[in-house]
């Protein structure tokens, strides 16, 4: 990644991407559907990247990557094919193509950087928006729960999948490296705190990411051939989570959240932790 991208101040997407590309190395092609990264690249005739970036339509990233990966492998090339998509292009409009690519065992890495809204078009709700969050299309707070895309991906039994967070770059770096050693589809879901979307001041992105993990709203883990390992940061969080309010309070998008929704979120955190702990213990 070169200097001078068009990212907002405090952007987690570009922070994460820097580590992703460091881990992936130069023999890599990025497949990017419509998302914030489309804009971060800059405007013709410039590009902010020194690896090939293939831009494709919003819902088509995984299908495009599927074709590209098959073509590279058919010509004996080992080039990494990495989809780098937002939550909109993954959980919503892109889910069909992603499911298909995973079901067919495509050899690629699908990375979803999740800022929990449609960032590129101005912060409308996505399937990844958490319950209670205000967006421009959920002005009084989203009433539906965040779609559990990790469970959906897990159901496809990929060789490797992981969650990550832009606030933990070394962890992300290792996970990307690991993912690329597997043949077949891998998936990394990165939480990407977003200052304009979540409405906090631009220097707090890393802090927000850490609070998300510490509160249990975001759990860091990996599954290798279905075997779950919860990462240490989240093990600590599960033992002693910080109060959810500490994570939500600095974010304007949760302003005015009612007690009932807050309780539902707490219940979700507890249930999720219990489920993951049980799954990990199961082996």
């Amino acid at each position, binding site marked *: 990644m070169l200097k001078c991208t*068009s*990212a*907002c*101040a405090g952007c987690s997407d570009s922070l994460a991407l820097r580590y992703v590309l460091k881990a992936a190395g130069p023999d890599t092609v990025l497949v990017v559907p419509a998302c914030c990264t489309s*804009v971060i690249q800059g405007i013709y005739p410039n590009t902010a990247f020194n690896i090939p970036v293939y831009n494709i339509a919003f819902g088509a990233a995984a299908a495009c990557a599927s074709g590209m990966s098959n073509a590279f492998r058919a010509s004996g090339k080992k080039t990494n094919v990495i989809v780098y998509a937002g939550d909109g292009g993954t959980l919503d409009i892109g889910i069909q193509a992603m499911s298909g690519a995973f079901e067919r065992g495509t050899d690629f890495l699908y990375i979803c950087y999740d800022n929990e809204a449609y960032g590129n078009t101005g912060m409308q709700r996505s399937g990844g928006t958490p319950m209670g969050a205000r967006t421009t299309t959920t002005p009084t707070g989203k009433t539906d729960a965040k779609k559990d895309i990790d469970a959906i991906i897990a159901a496809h039994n990929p060789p490797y999948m992981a969650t990550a967070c832009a606030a933990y770059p070394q962890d992300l770096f290792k996970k990307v490296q690991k993912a690329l050693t597997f043949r077949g589809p891998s998936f990394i879901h990165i939480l990407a705190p977003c*200052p*304009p979307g979540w409405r906090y*001041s*631009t220097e707090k992105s890393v802090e927000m990411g850490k609070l998300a993990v510490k509160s249990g709203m975001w759990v860091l883990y990996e599954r290798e051939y279905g075997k779950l390992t919860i990462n240490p940061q989240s093990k600590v969080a599960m033992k002693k989570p910080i109060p959810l309010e500490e994570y939500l309070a600095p974010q304007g998008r949760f302003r005015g959240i009612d007690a009932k929704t807050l309780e539902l979120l707490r219940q979700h955190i507890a249930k999720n932790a219990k489920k993951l702990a049980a799954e990990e213990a199961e082996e």
Partner: protein
Amino acid sequence: MYEIRIHSRGGQGGVTAARLLALSAIHDGKYATACPFYGAERRGAPIVSFVRINDTPIKIYSQIKKPDMVVVLDASVMDVVDVLQGLKIGGKVLVNSAHKKEFAGFSTSHVDLTGIALRENLVVAGSPILNTPVLGALAKMGIISVDSAKKSIREMFTDERNVRAAEAAYTEMSA
């Protein structure tokens, strides 16, 4: 036709300033259009918005190339943007500044909008609100009437501090 270009940074309310200005002109019985710069707007990046005021309907949509007036809401953009580009000879410049500014060939006025906003405690998310007090300055310059300025502000904002800030700018600005 009177054409005005407003310079600010993304997130400072430059687009709202254009809207309020156009709305005020409409309340004055004129025809007005306002438009933001057609680009990817990022918080903190320099942006421009445009306002056209006319006695008859405005049929022009293309960008203003030779404004009659330039408003600079954030003086720091002058380090990176040529705010005077295209400004008609003898055109007017209004700068948000506590200090007198001079640009040769143009009639320049200044008013400390930031200071006024801070005094009125007109601050949101750490940023002083400039788009309502600037209307007071524009009214003093005769672009719009004071009554229409107050009317548009009240239509958009319930907080009366906005009106007081506009009144303060009207008073403090030298004509």
